[in-house]
């Protein structure tokens, strides 16, 4: 088994002599690797960034023929670990061993040389180049990319692992799932024995994630070692042979294939939850949102909303939200959720449709007008559009009220009033900051989110749109944010919750709408059958 692997690596080099295509190597039982030693070993590595220890003496073994899941919440240190394996960062302490030899992975190129290929969460392909040109990237300067040869070798690797890709298609025209396959194929063509998949399923449909799981199964049978990074527990159990749990930069525990088999799915789930969140979390994770009886009179009414957009136009969206109700909007990222939120908030022109708030038509009002009537929008792009990173917190809290009394009088700012308001918001919403004059970009994601919540939920809010409200936050801030959303609904606000995290939608919503390709393809009540119904709708299956 190991020999087959090394043969693979030997026949391949960075310039792409492909895998040898003899009969497929005999698959060994994935749970009991026959290798004497791991391909890659991280030995007590530590990595510090200003103010945080991202990885604290983390050890980690990677065996051939295994899918090794790296499981942990956002901020647990997974990305840093991946960064050190793929040559983006060097550890401050500790060693990296490959085949038992100490190495220094000083650059992405070095990682490739060592046989470590990485598929990042954000595509590492050049959109304006074709698939083969992306594969060819990195050869000698004046050489001509061997497009035909690469296409042939690509076809062979594709056939080996059971995917089909048009080698001459522009990458920008491919779906995210296809782009991921391209990256996996490329890594294999470069002779990778180790494949790192960083949050690979985050952007995929449930069906796409399943396909990827099956692909990982086929890859390890070829003797490849796969590192699969995720924060989704069900995927870890479904696809992984070995699971390492990280929490707050430390390795909490590793569950070996033997132990995983012995535990069985239910016990393993409980065990992993305990490891990920600590002892008390297991109970909380299952606590669900109490059903409310929706009141009869809708507060926010959206009828026939349509938006022109180059990538995802919206058409014919109807949605009603009652006071105190949370309507979740589930769907794969990029199916028009962002356009929908922006259109309702007033940042985009409607092509057609009506929006009423408390019976009053608001579709002709601008952002400020809608806000004054009580419509609020908590954006998911906190630093990109939600705040001005270099400006102090105090001004960011008033970003949508510039010029309004009492903070400005006759157009001139009133520093005392602004400061008082900022101090009140900071304490009310528990924003941890050195001071109200601190540039907001210097705060952690969780505290920026608190400031945004303060801005959008304070004053006379009546209806709120939350876009991916917990994206990128740590466990505590996720809990705090979800609590705020519940409180907002309990206080009688109409809430739209847009999230790509199905668990979150199921946990909080009263009803769930599913968006696909710019349309609402279905609306389901949040009952026992909701999960499977939403899954079907998301993947485009007709109900």
């Amino acid at each position, binding site marked *: 088994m190991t020999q087959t692997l090394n043969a693979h690596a030997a026949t391949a080099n960075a310039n792409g002599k492909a895998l040898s295509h003899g009969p497929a190597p005999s698959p060994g039982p994935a749970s009991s690797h026959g290798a004497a030693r791991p391909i890659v070993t991280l030995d007590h590595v530590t990595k510090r960034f200003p103010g945080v220890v991202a990885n604290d003496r983390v050890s980690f073994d990677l065996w051939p023929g295994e899918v090794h899941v790296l499981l942990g919440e956002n901020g647990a240190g997974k990305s840093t670990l991946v960064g050190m394996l793929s040559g983006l960062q060097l550890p401050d302490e500790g060693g990296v061993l490959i085949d038992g030899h100490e190495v220094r992975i000083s650059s992405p190129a070095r990682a490739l040389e060592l046989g470590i290929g990485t598929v990042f969460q954000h595509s590492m392909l050049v959109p304006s180049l074709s698939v083969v040109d992306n594969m060819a990237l990195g050869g000698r300067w004046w050489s001509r990319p061997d497009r035909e040869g690469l296409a042939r070798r690509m076809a062979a690797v594709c056939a080996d692992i059971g995917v089909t890709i048009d080698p001459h298609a522009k990458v920008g025209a491919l779906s995210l799932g296809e782009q991921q396959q391209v990256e996996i194929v490329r890594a294999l063509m470069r002779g990778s024995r180790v494949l790192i998949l960083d949050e690979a399923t985050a952007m995929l449909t449930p069906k796409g994630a399943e396909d990827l799981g099956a692909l990982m199964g086929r890859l390890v049978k070829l003797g490849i070692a796969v590192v699969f990074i995720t924060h989704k527990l069900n995927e870890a159990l479904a696809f992984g042979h070995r699971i390492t749990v990280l929490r707050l930069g430390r390795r909490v525990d590793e569950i070996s294939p033997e132990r995983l088999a012995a535990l069985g799915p239910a016990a393993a789930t409980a065990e992993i939850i305990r490891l990920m969140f600590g002892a008390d979390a297991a109970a909380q994770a299952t606590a669900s949102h109490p059903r409310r009886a929706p009141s009869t009179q809708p507060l926010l009414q959206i009828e026939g909303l349509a938006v022109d957009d180059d990538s995802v136009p919206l058409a014919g969206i109807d949605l009603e939200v009652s006071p105190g109700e949370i309507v979740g909007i589930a769907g794969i990222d990029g199916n028009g959720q962002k356009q929908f939120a922006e259109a309702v908030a007033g940042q985009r022109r409607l092509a057609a449709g009506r929006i009423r708030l408390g019976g009053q038509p608001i579709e002709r009002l601008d952002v400020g007008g809608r806000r004054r009537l009580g419509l609020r929008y908590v954006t998911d792009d906190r630093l990109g559009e939600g*705040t001005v990173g*270099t*400006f102090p917190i105090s001004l960011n809290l008033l*970003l949508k009220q510039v010029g309004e009394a009492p903070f400005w009088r006759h*157009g001139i700012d009133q520093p005392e009033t602004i400061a008082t308001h900022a101090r009140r918001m900071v304490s009310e919403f528990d924003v941890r900051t*050195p001071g109200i004059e601190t540039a907001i970009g210097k705060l952690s994601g969780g505290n920026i989110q608190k400031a945004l919540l303060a801005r959008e939920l304070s004053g006379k809010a009546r209806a709120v749109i939350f876009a991916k409200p917990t994206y990128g936050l740590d466990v505590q801030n996720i809990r705090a944010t979800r609590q705020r959303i519940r409180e907002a609904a309990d206080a009688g606000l109409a809430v739209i919750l847009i999230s790509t995290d199905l668990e979150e939608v199921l946990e909080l919503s009263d009803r769930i709408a599913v968006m696909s390709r710019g349309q609402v393809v279905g609306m389901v009540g949040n009952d026992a059958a909701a999960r499977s119904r939403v899954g079907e709708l998301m993947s485009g299956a007709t109900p």
Partner: protein
Amino acid sequence: MSDTTQIGSDALPAPRSGVWRDRARLLALALGPVLGAVLLSGLVLLALGVNPFAYYGYVVDRGLLNPYGLQATLTRMGPLLLIAAGLIVAFRAGIWNLGGDGQFLLSAVIVAALGPLLAPHMPVWLVLLIGLLVGAMVGAAWSVLPALLKAYQGVNEIITTLMMTFLGVSLANVLVKLFFRDPATTVPQTRTLIVADRLPRLFDTTISSGLIIGLVAIIVVHLVMTRTAFGLKLRIVGANPRAAIHAGLSVPALTVATFAISAALAGLAGAVEIMGVQGNVRADWNPAYSLTVVPLVFLARFNGFASIAFVFLFSVLSIGGESAARRTGVPNFFTLVVVAILLIMLGITEYLDQRRRAAGK
């Protein structure tokens, strides 16, 4: 393209305890490049076989110590301050208005043509007032095209404003040579506004009251940008245009307003230069102030008061350099070299500071 328009971030307010250390840092950041530039330019002089001490000594003497030199320096500051004020508005709003020279020169030509026409028919103060207004309007008009292209088509304003500058400089020459030419002279130039009809001088000096206009303009601009809702809106657009859209600001309207104000101030500078100093425009005259003021405004970190200081320094160098050109044989172009070195020094200082702060954390 969005990142290229990320001109600079506002200076970060420091926690109260470190205010003085912070100010010392800012002072070092501002003076470091100046000293470095003086030193390096001295080496350039040395390489050209000129004694740098003699040269700089002459510049300081003629630009600062000599009373007539000082008065010329202060007069020169007027238009430069107006240009600087215009650049502060633009840069804080994230707009690269590099078209100041065209805006300046066209306004100068129109005002120079208009002044002598109006002067016989109305009181001086009215001529001057109309001149200033027309100058501002001409400047603003010359920015309409880049403004609209930027606001509604997203066309990079660096390119369009530069093109408008070249166009404007040529157009100004055409106007002087073909339309506004003074028939009484052999050299193509506009008719001359007599000294009595120009901007009044201050007290018993030769300093033009253009200095006052410039000082008022830059201080008002500073206060508007830092203390008012309008200024804050412009700064939001400049620092993060997407946040501006998110907050419901009308980015296109604010962009057009920024161009208009910035270019109007450059136009005003042209009017002040003509009605305060030159009195007429000769063909092919182009002092090219605007591009040289850019580094000064950067050096001042878009702060109005700091800009006054740097404009003063530059005026000394410029007036002193003009005198020195005659005496030491170093042509005026040398100031361009100094400014370029200054700009590069500024970049390096900024970089070193970033590194130092990153290391300090």
